[in-house]
């Protein structure tokens, strides 16, 4: 078992070295192009203390031989086995107005132990291809997130889930039932109150009141006519007389279907109280009141 593990480690180390060599070959600058290159002023990233996923930032001053350098921006791509280059961007420093090319590399691989890898060199050409800036390689020390040699006992590591502590639900239920009961009682009381209020309001409507009064009166008695007069007055919000009937229909247009009978009522009432007395074939005050009460209730709904 130990022999097998050692063989595996040797094989992996060899593979890493091979990959690293390939990467450095891939990113090595072209010998010819270097003759026209100028070494760039570079702010390199910290050389140590990196893990997989970390992002390194390299800043390159865009200046060649004291003149501004307009770079052809390098592509965002995988760089060797270790890095992934992100989209570069150009920043202008606030303090001196100088322009910097910002290159960000993310570490996309994890070493098995602490090791030094190389952020490869890079040649940045200008947009016309005549000049180039050379960015030298930078050694970077990376480390694994965990110690690969630490042995893990899977049987120990995997444990059954701890049972959740049971919360006593009986008091909660009791409270919920009490609260629900109180809400139901309040709702019932509220509905009862609304119903009672509506019933009272319906009973207090002018012609509903007059209807109740008429039950206790002879419909031919002057008091019965007066009760209907008061109902008209309450409906219009003012005293209504024969000459001011327009005010009644303005306040209660829902009485318009009975306009003729209402006008007849006022004419006959005038004769009863102020003239020669009730004419033969006078209308039924009770029937008029009942019909007006019906219109009034329909309007109130």
């Amino acid at each position, binding site marked *: 078992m130990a022999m097998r593990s050692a063989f595996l480690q040797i094989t992996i180390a060899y593979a890493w070295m091979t990959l690293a060599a390939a990467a450095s070959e891939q990113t090595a600058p072209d010998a010819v192009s270097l003759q026209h290159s100028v070494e760039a002023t570079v702010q390199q990233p910290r050389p140590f203390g990196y893990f997989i996923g970390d992002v390194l930032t390299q800043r390159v001053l865009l200046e060649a031989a004291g003149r501004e350098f307009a770079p052809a921006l390098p592509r965002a791509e995988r760089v060797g086995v270790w890095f992934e280059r992100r989209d570069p961007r150009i920043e202008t420093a606030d303090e001196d107005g100088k322009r910097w090319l910002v290159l960000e590399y993310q570490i996309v691989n994890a070493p098995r132990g602490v090791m030094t890898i190389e952020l490869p060199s890079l040649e940045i050409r200008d947009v016309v291809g005549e000049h180039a800036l050379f960015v030298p390689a930078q050694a970077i020390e990376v480390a694994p997130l965990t110690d690969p040699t630490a042995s893990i006992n899977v049987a120990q590591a995997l444990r059954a889930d701890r049972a959740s502590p049971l919360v006593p639900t009986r008091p909660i239920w009791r409270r919920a039932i009490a609260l629900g009961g109180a809400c139901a009682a309040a709702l019932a009381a509220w509905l009862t109150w609304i119903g009672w209020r509506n019933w009272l309001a319906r009973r207090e409507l002018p012609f509903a009141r007059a209807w109740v009064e008429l039950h206790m009166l002879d419909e031919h008695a*002057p*008091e019965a*006519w*007066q009760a209907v*007069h*008061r109902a008209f*007055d309450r409906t219009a919000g*003012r*005293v209504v*007389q*024969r*000459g*001011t009937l327009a005010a009644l229909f303005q306040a209660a247009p829902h009485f318009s279907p009975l306009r003729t009978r209402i006008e007849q009522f006022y004419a006959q*009432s*005038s004769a009863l*109280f*102020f*003239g*020669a007395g009730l004419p033969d074939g006078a209308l039924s005050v009770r029937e008029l009141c009942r019909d007006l009460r019906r219109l009034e209730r329909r309007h109130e709904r």
Partner: protein
Amino acid sequence: MADDREHLNEWRERALRVEASVGNAIVGQRDTIRLINVALFARGHVLLEGDVGVGKTTILRAFARAIGGAFERIEGTIDLMPGDLIYHTYVDADGKPRIEPGPLLRHGEQLTTFFFNEINRARPQVQSLMLRAMAERSVSAFNREYRFPYMLVFADRNRVEREETFELASAARDRFMFELRMPTPTDETIRRSLVFHPEFHDVDALLEKVTPAILPWRELNEIGAAIQRSVTASEALERYVMDLWTATQSPKRFDIRLDGVDMDKLILAGASPRGMMALTRAARVVAWLDGRAHLVPDDIRAVVPAVLGHRIFFTPVYELRRAQIADALVAEILDKVPTPRS
């Protein structure tokens, strides 16, 4: 009895003819014409109030012409003295001093219409003399009493000017049966006619359109009394009038309220008995003109604003706002006092 009724019907026709005839000359003032006609047959004096130039003088001259009998007018001025109503003095062609009767005495008993223009410009002494003449229809002068049994006083005052005027005392205003407010016409067609139609620009020509002396004026008092006798008031109507009277004295008893007015402190004095008499007298004439022999509440309502508006007296705090409060109070009284009631 039947003769009486027939006689009253004839007079009713005449009264309506007076109204129609005045209406030929005066447009847009139908309510004012009706109320002046009512006052004429209720034998009550009228105080007409309105803006300058609405036709107050013209309407009164038109009535004077339609009524017939002698007509006199006097202009109220600050230097007018009571004697100016009774006599005037001058030196005649022979150089002798002469004294002639003034406008009040000139026509004696034939005076039917006395028109006092801008009465509030005359001094209180003049107003006092006039008020006695109105109340008693007589004055004492030259050691004897002069009577004017058929005289009605029409007075006017404009409500725009208050400078150099003498407001009529409460007792004086109470002597007028009606205090009418004559509005500027609001109907567009009438307003256009008044402005553009030349016939309205010549007052004398306009008054020619009024049929003269429609009424046998010597019978007016008698007819007035007959009208009062012929129109009856039921018990319910009497109760209504009594309630209205109470409401002018204690509006709160009928739940009458006005915005921004402390109703407990509003009324100094309600309508006077003379005012309530004037109310029923005028209402009876309204009923008669309507061809009825009994009063209905609408007859009362028709004359309440003109009769009671100036007869309710407010405490000094509210008296300054009379113009707004009086109309609103009368309207509320009419809206809140119920009838018929048990």
